[in-house]
């Protein structure tokens, strides 16, 4: 069993101890999986992260805080032996100490985690499917994903909480992850939007008409929107 992350109930909420080795991104990914696996069990919980000597920068902490927030979990405090990490935590206005008593009190029992439920049924995710060209002046809003089989012409607008997939040329304005989901993507057979947004990021198409159109996927990576081959 992977013990790189342990969760423990304490007076202040939940103490999450992350082993000092291993890649931070892998570990946060695992933490999120753990939380997601428990359904809404952790919703509203206040979390203290115990990180040992690991050195983290401010944006790394900010990211994990954001991911937790999206699941209704509040990052309260960070415990660390690294000055750099403590510094980063303070800049984010996180607490960096706990009263010893708080740690001691409920130390006794580690939280028993339910295994993630296995459900053979798939209910899919909500979405809109448009089987025609979206012309100038049309706007589509969706709480889920939007799939267009056809072109999205300049002057057309799509705003989706989820992903946007265009089986055609995308030349209009699109906003994926409009509710703040930075993992949302925009895919098109020919990605040439007037403007493309994912969550809070925004970009415009590079002006290289010479480039041969190819299927591309736009996603948020390294703090900006990047386009990669869509395959």
């Amino acid at each position: 069993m992977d013990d790189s992350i342990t969760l423990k109930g304490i007076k202040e909420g939940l103490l999450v101890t992350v082993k000092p080795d291993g890649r931070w991104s892998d570990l946060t990914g695992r933490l999120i999986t753990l939380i997601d696996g428990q359904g809404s069990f952790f919703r509203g919980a206040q979390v203290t992260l115990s990180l040992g000597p690991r050195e983290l920068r401010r944006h790394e902490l900010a990211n994990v805080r954001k991911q937790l927030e999206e699941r209704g979990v509040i990052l309260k405090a960070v415990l660390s032996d690294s000055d750099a990490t403590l510094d980063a935590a303070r800049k984010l206005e996180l607490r960096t100490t706990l009263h010893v008593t708080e740690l001691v009190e409920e130390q006794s029992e580690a939280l028993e985690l339910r295994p993630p439920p296995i459900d053979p049924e798939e209910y899919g995710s909500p979405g809109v499917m448009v089987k025609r060209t979206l012309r100038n002046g049309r706007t589509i809003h969706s709480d889920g994903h939007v799939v267009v089989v056809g072109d999205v012409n300049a002057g057309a607008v799509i705003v989706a909480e989820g992903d946007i997939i265009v089986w055609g040329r995308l030349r209009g304005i699109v906003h994926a992850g409009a509710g703040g989901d930075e993992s949302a993507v925009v895919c098109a057979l020919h990605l040439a939007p007037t403007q493309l947004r994912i969550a809070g990021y925004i970009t415009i198409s590079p002006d290289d008409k010479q480039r041969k159109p190819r299927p591309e996927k736009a996603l948020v990576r390294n703090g900006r929107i990047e386009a990669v081959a869509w395959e």
Partner: protein
Amino acid sequence: MGARVITITSGKGGVGKTTATANLAVALANLGKKVVCIDADIGLRNLDVVMGLENRIVYDLVDVVEGRCKLRQAMIKDKRVPDLYLLPAAQTRDKTAVSPQDMIALANQLRGDYDYILIDSPAGIEWGFRNALAPADEVIIITNPEAPAVRDADRIIGLVEAEGRKIPTSLVINRAKPDMIRRGDMLSVNDVLDILSTPLLGVIPDDEQIIVSSNRGSPLTLDNQKSPASEAIRDIARRITGAKVPIGELERKKGGLFRRLARLFRRSRA
């Protein structure tokens, strides 16, 4: 039954709707069709001027709708061709004097006696456009090979689609300049079709003879003049009647337009 009602529209102003309507009407009449054109641009009428019939107007569209005259009384016969009539717009009223229902009723009154009813739509997407669209069996979208005109055409095609009547729509690209297209300074026919994905009915070159003829009130297609634009418009008229005038390979392929225009120029010199 009877006439096909074809509305000529564009979204953007000044792209050549009125010019195309007048010239197509004459060309269709010259093919032996019974044609009536309706100027739906109330308040800014000028189909009558382009057709050279302005001085014969007594009654207009609004007089008919408001019952001041019979439909026949308002229709002006163009004596230069066998069967061509104009129902002029009112100059002094605004577009709200006529409703979409009025236009449908009017078209229905005329259907039995004609082969084609051409409606010249005003620019824009408001009331006047709605009036022009209401009775349409078909729509011809006119655009220029310029981004703003193509944008507006796209908007209009979307609005026509949104009518939900599945109105067949085709595209005429007007004022194409082969030199500019070749230099990459103007959108090519393919560029426009890429964006609009609408069947192409024809391409009319930019031609100063058009301006000369509009000033004279004598549509280019009247006297079988051999100018590039009149040839192109006559081809479009024949396509409207169902004749197979090649367009596909010639104009869609890269450089096709140039070859085709070159051919037209050659013919015009012969």
